[in-house]
């Protein structure tokens, strides 16, 4: 009940005690604090401890020294970080532009079948990673031959390769699968932003002879920049926290030869263990802390450097 009391303390004495404010806040506050915030803080704290002779001992920054100093750990970590960065760049360069383009097409005035297109394109976003991962594994599999057959239709069969199995192309292939799955999110958010542009602005542009492409680039794009900022930061947080798709397509080892290992899979392997390696709680907490700092840095950069400078238009 401490929440209720602290909420009530501050009310001017004249008014009756407003217990209901505390009652309304209490359940959400307790569940959220107990399951989300406290474990997050506890994880940050654990990264400064290690188990020595079965008892947790404060070791300061020793875990971080191991992560960045030990050749094997540092190699895995930098490999995962670089892969994760490539994963993110591919999302920004493929998923978001295509999503914006689809939204722009969908918002064409008086277009028919919009609801159908929207539903169909959003469908993959709803599917679980297990389904998505496995369907694409089957399609790209040389055994089944669907992908080579499709490529032979456009005369490019000779270019087919088992992309998921080659360390040079596996990361790109997995990223593109993830793009295919998540394209619905930028599409929907940008579509909503485009719909909210007032008709008068568009009409004024048309009176000035700005239509088609020029209208999109000069009028609509500046108006939806805040929404593009939001999808960028959502992509960033989602990508640096991704795990499921890599796990279902390539397994916990993120093969071939760790070429698709990202921070999420590295955290899972480190913390939970796999095959012969035992799980290591302290190093898991250390990696989680580094991921936390990366995400925090990205979110702060967005909030303070980008969102503030963005021009917003009020109608």
């Amino acid at each position, binding site marked *: 009940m401490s929440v209720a009391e602290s*909420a009530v303390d501050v009310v001017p004495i004249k008014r009756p005690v407003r217990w209901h404010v505390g009652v309304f806040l209490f359940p*959400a506050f307790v569940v959220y604090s107990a399951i989300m915030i406290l474990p997050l803080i506890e994880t940050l704290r654990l990264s400064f401890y290690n188990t020595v002779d079965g008892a947790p001992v404060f070791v300061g920054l020793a875990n971080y020294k191991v992560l960045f100093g030990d050749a094997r750990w540092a190699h895995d970590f930098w490999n995962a970080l670089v892969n994760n960065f490539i994963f993110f760049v591919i999302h920004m360069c493929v998923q978001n532009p295509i999503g914006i383009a*689809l939204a722009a097409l969908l918002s064409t005035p008086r277009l028919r079948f919009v609801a159908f297109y929207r539903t169909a394109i959003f469908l993959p976003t709803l599917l679980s990673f297990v389904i998505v991962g496995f369907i694409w594994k089957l399609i790209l599999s040389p055994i*089944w031959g669907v992908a080579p057959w499709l490529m032979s239709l456009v005369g490019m069969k000779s270019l087919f390769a088992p992309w998921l199995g080659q360390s040079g192309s596996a990361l790109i292939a997995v990223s593109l699968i993830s793009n295919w799955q998540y394209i619905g999110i930028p599409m929907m958010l940008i579509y909503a932003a485009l719909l909210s542009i007032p008709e008068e602005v568009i009409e004024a542009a048309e009176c000035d002879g700005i239509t088609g492409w020029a209208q999109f680039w000069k009028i609509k794009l500046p108006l939806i920049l805040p929404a593009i900022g939001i999808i960028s930061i959502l992509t960033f947080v989602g990508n640096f926290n991704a795990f499921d798709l890599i796990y279902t397509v390539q397994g916990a080892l993120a093969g071939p030869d760790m070429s698709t290992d990202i921070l999420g899979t590295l955290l899972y392997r480190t*913390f939970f263990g796999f095959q012969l390696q035992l799980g290591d709680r302290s190093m898991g907490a250390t990696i989680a802390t580094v991921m936390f700092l990366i995400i925090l840095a990205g979110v702060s950069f967005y909030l303070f450097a980008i969102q503030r400078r963005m021009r917003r238009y009020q109608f």
Partner: protein
Amino acid sequence: MSNRARTSPIRTSFVHLALIGYTLVAIFPVFLTIINSFKDRNAIFRSPLQVPTPSTFSLVGYRTVLGQGDFATYFQNSFIVTIVSIALVLLFGAMAAFALSEYRFRGNTLTGLYMAIGIMIPIRLGTVAILQGMVAAGLVNTLTALILVYTAQGIPLAIFILSEFMRTVSDDLKNAGRIDGLSEYAIFFRLVIPLVRPAMATVAVFTMIPIWNDLWFPLILAPAEATKTVTLGSQIFIGQFVTNWNAVLAALSLAILPILVLYVIFSRQLIRGITSGAVK
């Protein structure tokens, strides 16, 4: 003039062409999986792109899945976890959103910001300590553990979206209720909740998708046979039956089905929720 510029038939047909093209890319893999799950083994390999004909139609995959895996239990677990979590997220989220949007008290903004941290920082990063806590509380391999985690995960976004909507509920209406002697609880449950029902549906959809599809927490907190969710169950089933393509395709189709049904039910609500403001 402007009307002609906007609806030029050549441009419109290009737009349709592009959208149809991407629509095919989006639904082809799902379509391929579903048609092949109804074919016999030879037909799957000989002509993967053909729809099942009477001579190739076969339900052997579905029989294997329903006979071997405990899919009924998995579905039941997923339904319990998803529905209870959504109910708790909506109830707790709406209550907190009401407190934050309706009453002025010191610490209001601060509490709002505190609750908003969870929108950006993923709960997954606390997994190490969450597992430790669940072990200490004896909740490992229970559905309760999953429900608690998903409730905490869903609350921040629910509060954010719902408080935006609750600010639009007319003050006159609430004050009229107060003058008529309704308690604050009655105002919340009988006046405000019915008015924000569309927003609640939006939150429900946004909360449902990641919970139903999550693999991370079931894998770590509840991997036991009795508590597996559909997502984890089909992942493991596929791993074991990797060479039995009939069974794998049938399992995938079965896992797609509930999401398709839910999406058809909720899609209008989802579109309306996205286009009506709070998420923009």
